[in-house]
């Protein structure tokens, strides 16, 4: 096998690794922005293969379509991800601080979600400003609304009888 054939094989294998690795990383990364970039890298690997096949025009078209296309995709994703009411899932798209390959793992970031996200989610689920609805058969103290129980009984704080949460007009408001 001559040196040029060997070099061609090495180049082919390297480009295959780029194309396959790029598409695998696109699936594995948690960052939408990086997913778009990895897809772009994967297609650039394919463009390199077209160069190797001496199909220059196809290779250049491949670069044009995919760099432009992926950038527009990223643009739409960024625009859709930005929550006008707050920084929705801010950490998921931005915090890539996990060291090394960990940054590409499938696991969600640890730690409590940002407060803004939580309150936005509950406001959405509760339909416009309702306090969280008490589940069926919840008993609470008229004086201490933080006390919750599955069955009737005495309040551990003041000894009053617990009443059904629904019977309190406010639905057991937290009072804070």
């Amino acid at each position, binding site marked *: 096998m001559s040196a040029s054939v060997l070099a061609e094989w090495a180049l082919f294998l390297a480009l295959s690794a780029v194309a396959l690795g790029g598409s695998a990383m696109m699936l594995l990364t948690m960052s939408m922005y990086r997913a778009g970039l990895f897809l772009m890298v994967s297609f650039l690997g394919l463009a390199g293969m077209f160069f190797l096949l001496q199909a220059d025009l196809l290779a250049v078209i491949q670069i044009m379509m995919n760099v*432009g296309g992926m950038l527009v995709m*990223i643009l739409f994703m960024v625009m859709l991800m930005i929550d006008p009411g707050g920084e929705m899932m801010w950490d998921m798209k*931005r915090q890539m601080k996990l060291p090394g390959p960990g940054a590409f793992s499938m696991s969600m970031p640890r730690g409590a979600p940002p407060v803004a996200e939580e309150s936005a989610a509950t406001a959405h689920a509760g339909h416009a400003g309702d306090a969280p609805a008490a589940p069926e058969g919840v008993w609470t103290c008229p004086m201490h609304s933080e006390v919750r129980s599955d069955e009737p009984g005495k309040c551990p704080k003041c000894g009053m009888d617990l009443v059904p949460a629904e019977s309190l007009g406010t639905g057991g408001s937290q009072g804070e």
Partner: protein
Amino acid sequence: MNAGFLDTALLTLAWLAAGAYGVAVLERWIVPARAGARGVHALLQPLSSAARLLRAGNPLPARPDSALFRSAPLVAVATVALAAWAVPWSPTAAVDTPITLFFFVILLGPFVVALANAGWGANGKYGLLASMRAASHLVAYEVVLGFAILGPAMASESLSLVRIAQAQERLWFVVWQPLGLVLYLVSVLFAVYRRPFDTPIAGSELAGGALAEYGGARLLLFRAALSALLFLVAAVGAVTYLGGWHGPPGVAGLLPGSAWMLLKTYALVALLLWVGRRTPRFGHDQMLRFSWKVVLPLAFVNLAATGILILVLDP
């Protein structure tokens, strides 16, 4: 790879750096907003700026997307260097492939990716906005630029920059396609992020945009890449519309071909910088609207007119 490849790469980087230096000097002469030395002192002032940036350290913003933030200036320089490979300075020192022109236009795309990555990786609001602007910039200029350079390609029946330059031996394309040159210059102003279309890196609007968080050597690399990009698009403009290495008729023998080429390139650079100085910055929405609703239809008109002229003039 062989030694020839390495030589070519180093040589390309060297003349690209020299070209960018020339752009930096011209910028200091033409754009008063770049405060600093005037007159002959401006010849050395980019050196002192570069030295200052090199000594300034490489600050990182808080919680960046580190890989993207660090790699973006390198991607920018690599893109510009790859695109530089396509420019023919003289008939002998030229890479001739059948699609050089197309190759050049397409390679401006990854530069946008570098800017978008820079803005995104910085993990800040200015950077994020700049990233979005850069991405929408791409579509706005690439279509227009693609149509603006079709005139010379049609007239010379080739996408090779060498063939395009050769086709202008007797008559430069600018003489009978003046609108084409204007459209080309407007669309490259989009592509190189100069005023009036510099919204992704605008200083007074976004505090530097994609470059806001950069400092030190990375900022130097980015600025050099931006200057080199301006130099390159001017060079390609000189090839496609101003006859490349052919001097004006009558005086063509006074200078060698590459000197004519350099002269035309810097003339175009000066023109672009002057236009930038004289025009207020477009808002990003105004810019997109201008690109799609004014420049693109004009490019179609230019294309039709060029086709008719080719049919009428040529046998």
